[in-house]
């Protein structure tokens, strides 16, 4: 899967949980889910569950801890897709 396709899918997943819409509009690889987008930490688990469904992958708890920003989330998704 192309990284552009991954980032678009990821954006659709996180959008409902975003509180800072302005930061979402300028989202890039460095965007942090909690500090930049204002996503509540309880919703980070929802993001992980939605990512599992959208990409048909399983994210272990070690990997889940890392999914705090766009870059690291992309890396986890790419790694899990490659291992399929």
């Amino acid at each position, binding site marked *: 899967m192309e990284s552009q396709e991954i980032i678009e899918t990821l954006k659709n997943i996180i959008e409902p949980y975003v*509180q800072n819409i302005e930061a979402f509009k300028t989202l890039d690889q460095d965007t942090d889910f909690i500090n930049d987008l204002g996503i*509540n*930490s*309880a919703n980070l*688990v*929802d993001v*992980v*569950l939605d990512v599992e469904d959208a990409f048909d992958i399983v994210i272990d*708890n070690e990997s*889940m*801890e890392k999914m705090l920003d766009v870059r690291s989330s992309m890396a986890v998704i790419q790694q899990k897709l490659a291992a399929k």
Partner: protein
Amino acid sequence: MIGNDIVDLNFASFNSEERRDRYALKILHPNEQEFYQVSSEKSVLIWRYWSIKEAVYKAFAQQNLAAVFSPSKIEVTIRSSKNATAHIAGNHFHCTSIMSETLVYTVAVARSAVYLSSYFMMKGTQHSGDHTRLKQAAAQLLNLETNRLFIAKRNGKIPRLYDRKSQKSWPMSITHHGNFMGYALRF
């Protein structure tokens, strides 16, 4: 070390039991799974676990700035309808939770400590940064004028209450979710 966490249950519903149970698998320690599985109140219990884990992490992170929140690695033992104990990286915490139909609120402290804790409903979901109500409550308890007190964040994230005059300071924790905000102040 003190940490708190509030969950506004109106902002924390699951659209299916399956989704709730998948969420539980992600956040619970292996030793908590059984307690959860046999519970008849899973929908509240899951948020009680969450709130305890978040509060414990926040308390722990006050002295371990590089700590990463890893809910399934915090092991919680429910002791009663209010009390629980929790372990994180060899550290032990006492946790007290309040549960109602609308919220779950937990305070975690490293050992028995005197603390002031409260929560209140906000207008809307945006939290203001002035913390007036917290300062008023603390001022009353400390018998000081409110305008002597201010809150500053260490490393941009660990809040502390300061008294301008005496230069004293106290560790604290702030939480907000949905329409609720809570604070805990340790003396």
